[in-house]
């Protein structure tokens, strides 16, 4: 199993912590000097960069939020002058103003290197043909992976996104071995192959590196089963660098987060307090090497937990659990956080349930009530009432024990849950607060 940057990816704990402290302190010194936003925050709190003497001290600093970044549109968060910036990217800006991010020459170099790490962790080598079906443009996905694949010496096929049939023909004719795109696009490709009557077994495809959106283990199984590949997850976000923040190795047991470039923290999304090691909460990232666009305690909105146990692959860097949820998807019921993904997992345990469900939250007598609507397969409804009753009770009991709050369950007919552009409306919150 190859490791691209052994010196850094397999660094002893003590060494990585020293390096993180050094890089954190120099990053803080630079942002204090060069970014007005951060200087103001520091001054308001009456702290100086030199008050941060350990990685733990980082938690004394405030967060940087997406809103902060939007307010700094376009260039106010940059820590270098524009003439040192050699590349600009931005977020899609679907919800309000986009966020513009910049890269210096060194940032691009580090980015390629990080992408080379994630590709190598997934098993890509210089012998691979890597088809990149992320959109080439303002978004960061395609370019990051592109540089990494070139760095490794693989052959890059920059198909960009869309034109699925053409993608498949290229995949077949160019003998693509590795597909890089979003997991949902991978399924779309699988569907289209069926329509085109192309048997994925006859292709050279052996590997898929997917990222850009949350996807479940079940989705992984489906992709792997239908495309006959190994499907690996990688995590990144433009505000931090793009792809290259964390990635699975071939053990598929959490994503290695590259701690020589990023410090992860896990906080309680509702209080902002640091959570004890190993607990699940919102991921907060501080960059350690970014020159143009350094981030101090950026709230990613992604829910995960950290695992420091050394992985069998030899990498020592911390692993984040596969991200299935965003804070904006999280429900707080009677003070307990509830995630749709937990419910999905429970429903998979029961035969006859489709993992199609909807959560309806309301407040009765000042108390939160959570009702889960579950679509069941046709078969169940024709069956006897008693069986239905038992299924309902079992789901209810199981869900209540997994979630830690009492829930009501209602079984509904197939296809009866509202769908919006093929996506379920997962949560309906009727509470008036």
């Amino acid at each position: 199993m190859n490791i691209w940057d052994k010196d850094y990816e397999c660094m002893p704990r003590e060494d990585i912590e020293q390096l993180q402290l050094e890089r954190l302190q120099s990053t803080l010194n630079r942002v204090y000097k060069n970014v007005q936003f951060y200087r103001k925050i520091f001054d308001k709190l009456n702290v100086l960069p030199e008050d941060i003497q350990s990685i733990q001290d980082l938690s004394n600093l405030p967060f940087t939020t997406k809103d902060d970044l939007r307010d700094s549109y376009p260039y106010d968060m940059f820590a270098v002058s524009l003439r040192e910036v050699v590349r600009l990217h931005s977020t899609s800006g679907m919800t309000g103003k986009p966020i513009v991010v910049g890269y210096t020459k060194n940032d691009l170099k580090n980015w390629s290197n990080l992408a080379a790490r994630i590709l190598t962790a997934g098993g890509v080598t210089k012998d691979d043909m890597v088809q990149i079906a992320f959109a080439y443009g303002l978004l960061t996905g395609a370019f990051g992976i592109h540089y990494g694949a070139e760095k490794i010496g693989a052959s890059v096929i920059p198909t960009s996104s869309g034109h699925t049939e053409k993608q498949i023909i290229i995949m077949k004719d160019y003998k693509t071995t590795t597909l890089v795109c979003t997991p949902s696009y991978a399924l779309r490709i699988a569907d289209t192959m069926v329509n085109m009557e192309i048997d994925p077994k006859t292709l050279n495809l052996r590997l898929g590196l997917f990222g850009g959106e949350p996807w479940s283990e079940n989705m992984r199984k489906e992709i792997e089963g239908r495309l006959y590949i190994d499907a690996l997850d990688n995590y990144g976000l433009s505000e931090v660098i793009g792809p290259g923040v964390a990635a699975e190795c071939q053990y598929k047991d959490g994503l290695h987060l590259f701690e020589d470039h990023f410090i992860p923290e896990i906080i309680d999304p509702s209080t902002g307090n640091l959570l004890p090691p190993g607990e699940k909460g919102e991921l907060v990232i501080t960059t350690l090497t970014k020159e143009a666009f350094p981030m101090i305690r950026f709230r990613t909105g992604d829910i995960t937990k950290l695992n420091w146990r050394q992985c069998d692959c030899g990498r020592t860097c911390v692993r984040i659990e596969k991200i299935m949820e965003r804070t904006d998807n999280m429900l707080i019921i009677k003070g307990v956080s509830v995630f749709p993904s937990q419910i999905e997992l429970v429903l998979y345990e029961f035969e006859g349930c489709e993992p199609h469900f909807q959560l309806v939250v309301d407040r009765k007598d000042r108390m939160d009530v959570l009702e889960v609507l579950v679509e069941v397969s046709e078969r169940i409804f024709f069956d006897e009432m008693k069986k239905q009753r038992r299924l309902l009770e079992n789901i209810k009991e199981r869900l209540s024990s997994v979630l830690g709050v009492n829930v009501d369950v209602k079984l509904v007919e197939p296809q009866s849950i509202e769908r919006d552009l093929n996506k379920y409306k997962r949560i309906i919150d009727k509470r008036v607060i």
Partner: protein
Amino acid sequence: MLRIKNINTYYGKVHALKNVSIHVNVGEIVALIGANGAGKTTVLNSISGITPPREGEAIFKGVNILGLPTDQIVKMGISQIPEGRQIFAPLTVSTNLELGAYHRYSRKNKSSLKKDIEDVFSFFPILRERRNQIAGTLSGGEQQMLAIGRALMSKPSLLLLDEPSMGLAPMISKDIFRMISRLKDELKTTILIVEQNAKAALQLADRGYVIETGKIIMEESSKGLLNNKEVQRAYLGKEKKEIWE
């Protein structure tokens, strides 16, 4: 090999180093670059105990050396070659070298001392030629070699070099830098080098730190630092400052 955390060093009320954290791995050459007065020499003096820091931690081979007297730090294997060389000008080259081993001299017999001097001579053949010459009459480059040779007499595992090219003609500086990379290759000495000549130091080093008014503002591979526009402008003399700054 050396791991420093949050060193704060003062000259009276002047806070010269603010939370300096750096490390040097075995076999590495690490460069510390920065403008005049940034605190480069103070970092070296803080490590070697010449100006002991008020706070911080300096772990060398697993031992906290902070607060230890300089001679004990030398015994543990750290040898500093101070700015301006500071050789004993009125003494001969050989005597200078003998003095370099002073802390081992009492415990060592004459023949092993001789052997150590031989080792230095075989590394710097020019010093052998000049061994009976008064050190003060050597050329600048030769004096720097003598200063390095003297430091080598204590068989250091970590060498702290303070501006070895200072006051030397460019051609001679080149020789000295070549010598330093031979130290790494042939003697496997680990080196922390402070330089005004940032470009030469970075070409020699594996990694570097940039220090500015007592604070470290960057840790990077040498290549990365050479690539960095801010470093180029401030320390490599490549570009002029822009008006907007």
